[in-house]
């Protein structure tokens, strides 16, 4: 990224040399991003992030018809759910497809909803809280057979599992760079060849008129590099993080009453969503933070509100228990020592907080 922040600062739409260097950087990045998801570079629309990509995908509804319905799973990220809810204000309708206790989309429910001819269906590839994976190729085939536009939010999946856009059969797919060791503020919407996607931002005609605005050259180049590295290192990264997660799960078995959500479903290799019943998730993570362990009580985008995770509620988890949830997500730079430190801290915290709460009850 650094050359494009310093010497090669041109506007990619300028025809002079500096502009052309910037253009070249963007096109190389486009190829790298296309490669990692098995798409053609012309299918890649760069956006300001996963949120914008999701917004643009769902807004296709508005460009297609003045009214209609969309079907989304109940565990989608806020940038899908909130857009879908916003569409209600414009007279569109919304159906949420339920999930089972493991967080898997209930296929019969999805089939039923799609059969009623909505305009668009959107199901995420990997959930950001539980890490649970959905059978996207199967769901998209169901949607397609019914003539329904299908979108998948692959923001959390990219780089952790094999994401093959062609194989998903989706019309559109959202990506983000900063979940992939790339920079914040850049993402992409991948579209099927020939699929007409209306722009969310207009004025300037960049990205072949599908996304206007001066390209964030350095960030796009960073995204390309992150994608290239992820493609090369995906397997070792997955093996490494899964080993850490397995080690954690094994250690957790020795602790009393720990609940791991969505454990029986196929999951991302690096994610574990758990609860210690009776210990508030926020409290637990503050305590863990004091000993230098940074985890989360759910998605960062939900954490400005302190309610229980909508994902867990959709899975039928009791709200009291849902408030106890913490998410542990590993990266390529974590070590076994990190996991051991976490296990030790958990054990200690459970001991202290439990005795405190029993004192409070006494």
């Amino acid at each position, binding site marked *: 990224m*650094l050359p494009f*922040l*310093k*010497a090669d*600062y*041109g*506007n990619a*739409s*300028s*025809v*002079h*040399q*500096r*502009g052309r260097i910037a253009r070249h950087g963007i096109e190389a990045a486009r190829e790298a991003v296309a490669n990692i998801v098995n798409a053609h570079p012309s299918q890649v629309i760069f956006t*300001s*992030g*996963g*949120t*914008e990509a*999701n*917004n643009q995908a769902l807004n296709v509804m508005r460009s297609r018809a003045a009214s209609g319905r969309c079907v989304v799973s109940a565990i989608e*990220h*806020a*940038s*899908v*759910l*909130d*857009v879908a*809810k*916003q569409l209600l204000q414009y007279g569109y309708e919304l159906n949420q497809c339920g999930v089972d206790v493991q967080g898997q989309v209930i296929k019969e429910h999805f089939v039923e909803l799609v059969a009623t001819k909505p305009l668009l269906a959107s199901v995420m590839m990997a959930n950001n809280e539980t890490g649970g994976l959905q059978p996207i190729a199967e769901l998209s085939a169901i949607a397609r057979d019914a003539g329904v536009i299908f979108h998948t939010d692959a923001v959390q999946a990219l780089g952790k599992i094999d994401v093959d856009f062609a194989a998903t059969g989706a019309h559109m797919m959202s990506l*983000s760079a*900063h979940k992939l060791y790339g*920079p*914040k*503020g*850049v993402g992409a919407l991948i579209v099927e060849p020939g699929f007409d996607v209306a722009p*969310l*931002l*207009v*004025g*300037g*005609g960049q990205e072949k008129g599908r996304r*206007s*605005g*001066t*390209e*964030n050259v*350095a*960030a796009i180049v960073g995204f390309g590099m992150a994608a290239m590295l992820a493609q090369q290192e995906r397997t070792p990264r997955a093996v490494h993080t899964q080993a850490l997660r397995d080690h954690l799960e094994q250690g957790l078995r020795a602790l009393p009453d720990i609940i791991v959500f969505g454990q029986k479903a196929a999951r991302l290799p690096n994610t574990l969503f758990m609860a210690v019943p009776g210990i508030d998730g926020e409290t637990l*993570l503050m305590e863990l*933070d004091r000993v230098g362990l*940074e*985890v989360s*009580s759910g998605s*960062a*985008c939900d*954490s*400005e*509100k302190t309610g229980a995770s909508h994902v867990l509620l959709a899975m039928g988890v009791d709200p009291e228990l849902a408030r106890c949830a913490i998410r542990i997500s590993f990266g390529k*730079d974590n070590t076994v020592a990190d996991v051991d430190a976490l296990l030790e801290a958990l054990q200690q915290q459970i001991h202290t907080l439990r005795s405190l709460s029993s004192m409070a009850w006494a």
Partner: protein
Amino acid sequence: MKLPIYLDYAATTPMDPRVAQKMAQYLTLDGVFGNPASRSHPFGWKAEEAASEARIQVAALINADPKEIVWTSGATESDNLAIKGAAHFHQRKGKHIITCKTEHKAVLDTCRQLEREGYEVTYLDPEENGLIDVAKLEAAMRDDTVLVSIMHVNNEIGVIQDIAAIGELTRSKGILFHVDAAQSAGKVAIDLSRLKVDLMSFSAHKIYGPKGMGALYVSRKPRVRIEAQMHGGGHERGMRSGTLAVHQIVGMGEAFRIARLEMAEENTRLLALRDRLWNGLKDMEEVYLNGDLEHRVAGNLNVSFNFVEGESMIMAIKDLAVSSGSACTSASLEPSYVLRAIGRNDELAHSSIRFSLGRFSTEEEVDYTIALMKSKVDKLRQMSPLWEMFQDGVDLESVEWAAH
């Protein structure tokens, strides 16, 4: 002196090294890389702290309250958010919008989109000097006008609109006023505590900050309501969702901080360079300055070299990075719509060059530019049959061209 000489600061600016250095601290594991929305750990808090400081820095340059700043991915998004956001929120009051033909495409294309949604848009003609006649703007106002969108500084010809006067007018009529200030922030003093502006768009990469970063000022007193255009997560008080790119925000803050400290001095320097450039060119035959010279940002000079075709000139002056029209339209060979709107004919519009000077421009570069322009324009004209006819005193307007 290094070639090519960059004279396209209006398209984008190199980052100030101080900005790049600051941003680098917010990218990697040994710096602050957290998600500011993560409330649960210091990585998130530090990121949030840095974003707050940047918000204060951006607000300080334009004398606004930090709470009035909404981060966006750039001025294009700010323009889209302001215009669609205001139009959608106030559609019950009316569906008429007024703008100007010389606005940036981010404004014009957004208005076109609203027209397709059933809104009516009046596109004002500017005067020949590029400025809006406020009386004509007033005459275009109707009972159902909800929004006026006029840019502060034009990206091609650099003219400065009288947004103070326009603001008085719109406020007295209860109409919202949006200003695209992508080209003016850091170049023209902006005091939003006095200006009656409701919404104002900013870009970072036009003032030595990063690309992919901008802001929208949304007035709190009086409180201006707009409808969010991007949803999910409820960042930016619900007006703009999406993970804040901390390094980008910090970069914009630093760029605005530097601009506030150095703007006055920089303008004096740039004005001297610009005058030097114009003085070096204006005595050539058949050159025309586009746009008012008085009401104009210091770094901009837009000149038409009659009888020379713009694109072939750009090819001939490879030592200069300049543009013919704006970057956003320069990929097309259409003559500049801005120059057409101020009454320039196709020939003059086609032969225009925008020189935009900036922080790292030098006197030596300007002198080189003058010499190069003189020799290349001369050379291209030698090859032009039209120039020859003109020299022979043929009135080109009266020639009837035969088709072959």
